[in-house]
């Protein structure tokens, strides 16, 4: 019988394009942080369009580090029991056209 250790699941990921004409500005980042904080999942983002760290999007200052302009692509990854719901909620906020891949 296998040891019943912590369940490790591969993170779920989605790539979304920033459609807000002003980019991912402070107020939009705030909305993103509040949504992320509703979920238990660990959620990260990386800007694929410019040099970017992989950031924890429960932190408003780390979201701002993405420096995402309109048209930039973000890779969102979530790991945890509610990862799917978290990605759906964040994609709906950032990419309302529903084009997340």
């Amino acid at each position, binding site marked *: 019988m296998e040891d019943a250790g912590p369940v490790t699941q591969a993170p779920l990921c989605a790539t979304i394009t920033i459609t807000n004409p002003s980019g991912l500005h*402070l*107020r939009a980042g*705030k909305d993103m*942080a*509040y949504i992320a*904080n509703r979920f238990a999942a660990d959620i990260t983002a990386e800007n694929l369009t*410019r*040099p*970017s*760290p992989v950031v924890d999007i429960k*932190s*408003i*200052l*780390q979201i*701002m*580090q993405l*420096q995402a302009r309109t048209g930039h692509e973000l890779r969102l990854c979530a790991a945890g029991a509610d990862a799917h719901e978290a990605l759906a909620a964040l994609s709906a906020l950032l990419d309302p056209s529903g084009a997340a891949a």
Partner: protein
Amino acid sequence: MIALDIVSHCHDIAEGTCRLAAEMTQEPVPIAAVGGIVDEHGQFQIGTDALRIVEAIQACWRPAGVLLLVDVGSAVLSAETAIELLPEEQAAVCLISNAPLVEGAIVAALEASLGHTLEEVNRAAETARRLDKVFR
């Protein structure tokens, strides 16, 4: 819910930082701003005034605590003096943050709005000390 007290040498910086921080909240967070000193003509000048900081703390004080976000130098000294002048039960839950003022206030307002504790909010605010803004 904790409260925030913004302390700057400059009245306009304190008020402006307070407005910016308030924008970051979802639930109302008590935030007080205190900046500068008042001269004999009633005009704000650059400086810090421990007694005005006492008033600001008492205006926003909550049992869960007050996080003081300060700019530099005598803002720290005046904040320390202000805390010493408070009744013991109020002073016991006041904490001066090592966070940079503006970034710290942005983070602290959001984290306080989430209902986090004084220590949790301060820890999050102090991460601003080591986060780069641009990546080259």
